[in-house]
């Protein structure tokens, strides 16, 4: 089966295989038709296929009569802020986020800067499949303009939303790995504004990804070394487009990507108590932290669109997912690694505590993740069989809002289809490593049955 995923996270495929210019042109025309002729912002991350995909996107948008504002290489959250700032009608971010370099994708952003909701993506798909796109005639056809202010504007917004006083006087030393992605143009500048001494690596957007752009302990090797060698207070690892953030503490320990949101939740709730939004497969440390402050946790299906909607609906003080994504609602209701950086560093500077102490004070749990590659046509029947197998298990409760999540008194097992690749993900969490391993065995047995 060929790698192509069309769903709630947009359209995603492999360059040279499924992700062809025709496909991209078609989706861009569908998007232009869906929004009606208007002004659309377009940005991309630093993948080699970016210019090819961007040209196809812009050709499709122009053909439907849209006005194209080309932001060039720019993080997705910067585009999302710029959509509102420039009064645009929507945006397309060309990035496959954390996927390896041969992938690329379109992420669709609507007028308010948020991702299209699953319902809206379905409407877009209907237009795509019908293939009857708006066609602008020569006399109303618009053109493309280049603008480079999206990142400066993002920096202005961040500066206005955080109190930089403490950070500027503390002068934290921060090691940052931008993965040669679009954060290369944002993160070092934001850290400088935060008064940090910046040790940047992989901050050249014209170079290839030095490692998979997925912030997790395995990809933090370089930044760990940098933290130790440079005696930095914090190490940061970015994905390709500025949504996910991985952390390394001052001892050089790479923290699980689940810790990013847990830490952000702890900091946000110290500042103001309010609802916390996360997805069903994120660590239960979030619930334990929230209960310390008497806050509620709202769980959504997996995907940024759901998180953003719930943040707005519940007036949440923090949101995000266990993959390292954090949304700081005072900046925007979308995942934004620069906003997460601001939240963390301002708190570190104010409290004076080392990062390791903050991390050690979090609930200590063990999470294990596995995935099973599976033919796309049998994914849903495999999930159905799993659900049948676990339905009547004693002492559990089953949540079906996204895949199948089985909660035990001392842990949980979550089985779901990936939004972005053809695989089933198995995630378990428990208080101890041995119990987590037991739960993984339990889940794997029932999935394979």
């Amino acid at each position, binding site marked *: 089966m060929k790698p192509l995923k069309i769903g709630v996270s947009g359209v995603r495929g*492999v*360059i040279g295989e499924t992700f062809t210019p025709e496909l991209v042109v078609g989706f861009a025309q569908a998007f232009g038709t869906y929004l009606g002729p208007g002004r659309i912002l377009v940005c991309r991350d630093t*993948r080699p296929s970016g210019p*090819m995909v961007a040209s196809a996107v812009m050709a*499709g948008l*122009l*053909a439907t009569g849209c006005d194209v504002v080309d932001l060039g290489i720019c993080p997705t959250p910067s585009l999302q802020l710029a959509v509102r700032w420039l009064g645009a009608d929507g945006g397309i971010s060309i990035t496959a986020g954390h996927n390896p370099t041969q992938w690329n994708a379109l992420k669709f952003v609507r007028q308010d800067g948020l991702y299209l909701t699953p319902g809206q993506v379905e409407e877009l798909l209907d237009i795509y499949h019908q293939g009857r796109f708006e066609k602008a*005639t020569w006399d109303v056809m618009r053109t493309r303009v280049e603008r480079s202010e999206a990142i400066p504007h993002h920096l202005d917004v961040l500066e206005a939303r955080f109190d930089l006083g403490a950070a500027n006087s503390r002068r934290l030393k921060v090691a940052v790995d931008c993965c040669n992605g679009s954060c290369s143009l944002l993160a070092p500048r934001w850290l400088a504004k935060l008064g940090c001494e910046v040790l940047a690596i992989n901050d050249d957007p014209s170079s290839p990804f030095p490692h998979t752009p997925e912030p997790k302990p395995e990809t933090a090797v370089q930044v760990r070394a940098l933290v130790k060698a440079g005696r930095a207070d914090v190490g940061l690892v970015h994905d390709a487009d500025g949504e996910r953030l991985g952390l390394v503490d001052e001892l050089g320990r790479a923290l699980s990507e689940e810790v990013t949101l847990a830490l952000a939740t702890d900091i946000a709730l110290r500042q103001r108590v309010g609802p916390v939004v996360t997805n069903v497969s994120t660590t239960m440390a979030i619930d334990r932290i929230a209960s310390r402050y008497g806050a509620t946790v709202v769980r959504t299906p997996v995907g940024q669109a759901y998180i953003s909607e719930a943040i707005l609906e519940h007036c949440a003080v923090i949101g995000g997912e266990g993959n390292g994504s954090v949304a700081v609602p005072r900046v925007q209701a979308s995942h934004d690694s620069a906003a997460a950086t601001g939240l963390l560093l301002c708190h570190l500077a104010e409290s004076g505590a080392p990062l390791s102490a903050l991390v050690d004070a979090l609930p200590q749990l063990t999470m294990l993740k596995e995935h099973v590659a599976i033919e796309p046509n049998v994914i849903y029947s495999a999930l159905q069989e799993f659900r049948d197998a676990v339905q009547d298990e004693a002492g559990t409760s089953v949540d079906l809002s996204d895949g199948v999540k089985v909660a035990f008194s001392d842990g949980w097992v979550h089985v779901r289809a990936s939004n972005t690749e053809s695989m089933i993900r198995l995630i378990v969490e428990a208080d101890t490593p041995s119990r987590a391993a037991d739960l993984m065995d339990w889940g794997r047995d029932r999935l394979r049955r």
Partner: protein
Amino acid sequence: MRAILTLKISISGVRGVVGDSLTPDLLTRFSQAFGTYVGSGRVVIGRDTRTSGEMVRQAVVSGLLSAGCRIVDAGVCPTPTVQLLVRKFRAAGGIAITASHNPPEWNALKFVGSDALFLSGARGRELLDIYHQGEYSKARSPRIRNVETMPGALDLHIAAVLEALGPLPAGRRRPKVVLDACNGAGSVVGPRLLEALGADVVGINTTPDGRFPRPAEPTPENLKALCAAVRDHRADIGFAQDMDADRLAIVSEAGEPIGEERTLVLAVEHVLRGTPGPVVANLSTTHALEPVARRYGCAVYRTPVGEANVTEGMHRHRAVIGGEGNGGVIYPRINYARDSLVGMGLILHLLADSGKTVSELVTALPALEIVKIQFPFPSQRLGEVFRKARREYADLPMDLRDGVKVMLPDAWFLLRGSNTEPVLRVVAEATSEEAARGLAEKVRDRVTEWLA
């Protein structure tokens, strides 16, 4: 009559109406087919100023990059600039984004091979086969390339013209020229070239915004503003270009259009005076060429219509100059392409060398007038019309290489379908305009009778 289609896919490229048949999907597929055909090398692209230009350009860029090509983007430039750059950079090919003289709702891709000539005949058919088969080369991610912009493209073209022709002779009065670039690609380079040659330039319609101030075809009825400007400024000559600056028309110092056909005749006169040799023109170009060539003891060879056919003929006969009667001058010392910049240079040198005015030069040419009429016509009935014409004029000399051309005593006419639009063209030439128009109309009426 059936509906007239707005898409022409032929060996001379793909041409259609924006907002209708010329979709980004079609354009990107064609570009992928071209990238596949030329084998992932370097490809030069350029466009005229049409409002759809940026959309088409983006579709072309994505298709070529996907096929693994490296792109050299010359931006807004004349079509001959694309051809010149293909040769200069030894590129694998080029794509000129322009519908030339077609109305503003049209746009097109013209494909250039590695020899800097438009694809024609067998090569055009091979490209079409790849397009229809739909299996295009796809570069994998790290091997996919980027676009290289080429800001000095126009300077290179100007330098090439100056190098071949030299500046106008020093010490004489600088000629005063009015240039009407139709707000097309000529706007960005025409005035600079004329100044570099040593002329004083007044530009009209030189805002490169793709808003057509007049129909793009530089035919006499479309040049009223230019004629008035030549008179107002007491200029020595007026030049008019089409959107992609391959064609050139001339207005005399009296403010009179001399007729597009005479652009090539005057250019031939100037070139043969210095370097006698074979001349090649298509078979719908004025027969005034033959007497002019004979003065210098040179031969004229005729080819089917289309730049590709003419350049092929020029190669075969080692021509020193060639072109088409629509104002397309091809001067191989610079470029095997119809090039209005070269045309302007040759004509200004002719004026300087001869010391004559445009009117005086025109008066000295053979007294022949050409009339062209065209009307919408479904391509599927062309064969029928040609068959009837062959039968009707069977006892006269005929040239059947492109439509039907019939030689009469002191006159000739040609009946052919357009390569670029769904229209039928009738071209007639005789010793007076009246006689030529009478002949063309007679033929048109016969066609209408045959179809009834």
